[in-house]
């Protein structure tokens, strides 16, 4: 990948907590980082493979509750609970993904939306375990070898370090043969299959990877917030994630940060917006799909092209990531 951009991002992550003294702002940014982890997974499945999954919040929820329960009830270390929580998410995702080729557009959207509603119902219903609507409280902060990530600053570094690592891994993945195969699947199932791409296998793998990312995000979320409630991982969050992805620009990975930051920070900065958030989200989704399917990132792309090539049209390509890279034969 573009090493300079990556190291610049890493440097920014290292410096931000030192420059931003306000712990409230840091906390908001940490939450953005957690969403970004889940969003990178969603970009992989929706942006690159072209499947709409509304299940990311459900996977976050499963991991958050497993992680929370293991640390509060069984006294596990968060570091041990995280992989188990992610493992549980993988199991659930496998159950949803593998039996037959269920991963076509309609079915996946409906099954994942149903899944989010089931998990929310269970988190609410299994009161003895999950604490019902009030949520699971008293979850410990993340700790490694006795060092507790208690301050906002520590959590910021922890979450964004995880986010960067996942971003780097995913960036390499999408610029490898796998990434090219995924784009081929997105463009045309049949054509991809005739080029010996195992469409079903790739879809399942991508679905699992996205679930793993959501699991990591969920586990980090519960240890950062120190509690988890059904409202924090319901379908509203899932649709919010889709909005962030579409707003930022899907199929580019970088757009994820734009979308998450904008949609999460705006209402924080401009408080009266809170009431209009839903209306705004809906408008953004519909308007972008109609007028700017590449999201905000496509504007960045067209701006860069215009700068490089004076006299270029500067028109936004629908999906820059698909246009820039060529598919090797």
């Amino acid at each position, binding site marked *: 990948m573009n090493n300079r951009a990556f190291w610049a991002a890493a440097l920014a992550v290292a410096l931000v907590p030192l420059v931003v003294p306000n712990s409230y702002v840091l906390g908001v940014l940490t939450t953005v980082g957690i969403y970004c982890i889940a969003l990178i997974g969603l970009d992989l499945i929706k942006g690159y493979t072209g499947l709409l999954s509304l299940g990311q919040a459900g996977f976050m929820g499963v991991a958050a509750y497993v992680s929370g329960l293991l640390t509060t009830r069984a006294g596990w270390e968060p570091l041990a609970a995280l992989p188990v929580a992610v493992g549980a998410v993988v199991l659930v995702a496998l159950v949803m993904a593998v039996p*037959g080729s269920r991963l*076509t557009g*309609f079915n996946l959207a*409906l099954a994942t*939306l149903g*899944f989010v509603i089931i998990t929310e119902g269970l988190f609410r219903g299994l009161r003895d375990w999950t604490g019902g609507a009030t949520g699971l409280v008293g979850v410990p902060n993340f700790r490694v070898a006795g060092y507790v990530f208690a301050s906002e600053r520590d959590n910021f570094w922890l979450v964004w370090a995880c986010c960067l690592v996942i971003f780097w891994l995913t960036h390499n993945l999408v610029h490898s043969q796998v990434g090219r195969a995924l784009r081929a699947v997105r463009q045309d199932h049949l054509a991809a299959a005739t080029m010996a791409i195992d469409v079903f296998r790739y879809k399942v793998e991508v679905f699992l990877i996205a679930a793993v990312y959501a699991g990591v995000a969920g586990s980090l979320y519960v240890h950062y917030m120190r509690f988890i409630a059904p409202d924090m991982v319901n379908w509203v969050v899932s649709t919010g994630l889709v909005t962030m992805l579409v707003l930022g620009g899907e199929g580019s990975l970088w757009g994820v940060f734009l979308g998450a930051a904008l949609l999460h920070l705006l209402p924080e900065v401009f408080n009266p917006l809170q009431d*209009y*958030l839903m209306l705004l989200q809906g408008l953004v989704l519909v308007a972008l799909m109609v007028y700017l399917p590449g999201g905000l990132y496509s504007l960045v792309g067209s701006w860069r092209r215009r700068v490089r090539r004076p006299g270029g049209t500067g028109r936004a390509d629908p999906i820059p990531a698909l246009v820039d890279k060529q598919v090797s034969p």
Partner: protein
Amino acid sequence: MAQFGQALLGGVTTGSIYALVGIGLVMIFKMSRVLNLAQGEFLILGALFAYTLVGLLPLWLACLLAVVGTFVIGLLFERLAVRPVRGSTLTVLLVITLGTSILLKGAAMLIWGKEPMSLPSLSGNNPLQVAGLFIPPQGLWILGGIAVTGLILRLFFDRTLLGKAMVATAENPTAAGMTGINTIRLGRLAFGLSGAIGGLAGVLIAPLTFISYDGGTLIGLKGFVAAALGGMYSIPGAVAGGLLLGALEALGAGYVSSIFKDVTAFVVLIVLLVVRSGLDKRKTLLEEGLS
């Protein structure tokens, strides 16, 4: 036994509402191949329109105007959001309807607030007692509503030129277009009718429950389960699916645990998607049984 009958009756009443939502979904799906994630919002809007109008007008007129209102919403939805992306991929269309659903929720929240509301019953609240079962009068209105809707739709699609043109468009848009049918306008009409049927479901169910701005997703999804049980392409299938789902839910809540009432529908959905290859097959078990 009386308890069983009572639970079943309640289930069938709620199931009729799922059936109405399912009919609306099937109509749009057949005409435009769009899976409308905003279908539940039609129901909510119908109830909320009637809630506002009932202060000014007699109840029946308020309900009628509310249905007209959701008809218009359906038309606008097609014109403003679906029409511009016609022919796009399935995922784009899904995101469009998802966005519309969030948009309508947000608008409803701003206009009507977050408090749940209810409507007065069309004919009082004194339950009728038939064979040991208590039947709320509104339940009869709902059962009548689904029966009349089914009958009207059957006559419309079988006997009128407009209805036959819609059937032709659903079967083969290209061929229908060649015979001079304006398939685009009929597609929009399907959204309007679907909105009206959703609105009807809303004004019928509102007296029996509380309606709030964000209730559309849950009811919309249950409509999907109803439609999917019926094969997604069949209106009688959606009705049967809705009634079956309502009965399953009520019996599940009565005999297992009421906490998991809403979970039942989605367990049915997931099982359906896993056992069958889901919505893309034209026939499902239920539909095969019906035809």
